[in-house]
């Protein structure tokens, strides 16, 4: 690999866009080339600062209402069961389209990565003023029924206050163009969003932590549901959250 190639590919490495083989090649070049190693370190540092800085803009409320007003109006309604199902159908079209879409051989297949990116975006959106919760309650018996009728499958809502994660409410969110339940917890002043979606697969998928844009995301599959827990708390604390959640779930099922 030449330095010219490495200078481009190191960005794909930084963005976690390379497949394992190419990642190893770039890392190999960097290990043996002080110039590219310095460039990589500098770019990684810049990305770290950028990630720590809020560079997003929030659309003015007036713009949102102007756009709302320009849409054909019916009574404002929650997403219907049909539209949720349509959302699921849209999701299954993803693989068919990926096959006909843009393919670059160096890049790995990244449906998971794209969904992770949407989950992190949803987490970011929720942190903006007034976006965190649709239903505010520390009582699981208030939050859980709120989801009924809004989603095909209401997400499990468990109070983990005694375990150090305070339930603060719930929210309807959108991932991959489908409605999805978000259960919101707080750890000190840090928000933990737990996104829950239905999956056709009932297999158990062990928890796995990934980092994107400075947020930790731990995802797993259990009981026909996919879970994504997202927060800016440390990876170990997030793992603790998931362990406590799963332990409480099991206790609920058995008790």
């Amino acid at each position, binding site marked *: 690999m030449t330095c010219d190639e490495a200078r481009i590919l190191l960005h*794909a490495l930084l963005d976690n866009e390379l497949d394992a083989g190419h990642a190893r090649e770039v890392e190999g070049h960097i290990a043996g080339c002080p110039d590219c190693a310095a460039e990589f370190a500098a770019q990684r540092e810049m990305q770290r600062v950028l990630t720590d800085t809020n560079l997003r803009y929030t659309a*003015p409320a007036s713009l*949102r209402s102007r756009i709302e007003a*320009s849409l054909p109006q019916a009574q404002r309604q929650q997403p*219907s069961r049909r539209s949720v199902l349509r959302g699921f159908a849209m999701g299954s*079209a993803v693989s068919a389209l990926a096959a006909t879409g843009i393919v670059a051989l160096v890049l790995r297949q990244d449906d998971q990565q*794209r969904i992770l990116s949407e989950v992190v975006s949803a987490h970011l959106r929720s942190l903006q003023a007034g976006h965190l919760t649709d239903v505010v309650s520390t009582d699981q018996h208030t939050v859980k029924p709120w989801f009924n009728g809004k989603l095909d499958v209401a997400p499990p809502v468990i109070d983990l206050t005694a375990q150090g994660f305070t339930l603060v409410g719930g929210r309807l969110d959108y991932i991959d163009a489908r409605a999805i339940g978000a259960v919101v917890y707080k750890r000190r002043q840090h928000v933990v969003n737990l996104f829950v979606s239905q999956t056709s697969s009932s297999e158990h998928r062990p928890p796995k932590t990934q980092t994107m844009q400075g947020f930790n995301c731990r995802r797993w599959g259990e009981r026909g549901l996919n879970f994504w827990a997202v927060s800016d708390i440390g990876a170990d604390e997030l793992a603790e959250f998931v362990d406590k959640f799963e332990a409480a779930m099991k206790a609920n099922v058995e008790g």
Partner: protein
Amino acid sequence: MPGTDDLQKAQRFREAALPHLDDVYTLARYLLRDASDAEDAVQECYLRALKHFDSYRGPAIKPWLFAILRNVCNAEYARRAHRPSAIEDTPGAAEQTPIWQESEASPETEVLRSRDAGAIRKLIETLAEPFKETFVLREINNLSYREIAEAIGAPVGTVMSRLARARAMLRAAWTAEEEHSR
């Protein structure tokens, strides 16, 4: 009175597209460098998106919305080019000058400066196109390379080289600013 189909379409559109309003607005702000032009462009983008929603086939709606916004912004660039005075009149015109040529920072503020969101936003705004849009789509709108390629209608290889170039330019501008304020 809108028909049932229109209402259903509007409802699907609302659910799919409105959650990305901040993302679309963010890109518009960086591309147009003017709050009110950005608002107009985003509104136009959503109008066009609704009109063509029937032809939208997924999978991800974000790149599709961004592609529409780019078209709207290109029309705005063309309009500005035909009315040079319009650009000079905008309050943002002074920002055409790279901010690292200003010298107001005292040594004590140096560390803060390098992390101040406003200063970084300006550095990004002054990046040349087409590097700026690729950078914003990746670093701020959080798109994957494939999604960026879809949004800008270019091959992934082009996305990669533009991104490398954009980051090199940004780092150079950033370093120049820090050295100047030292």
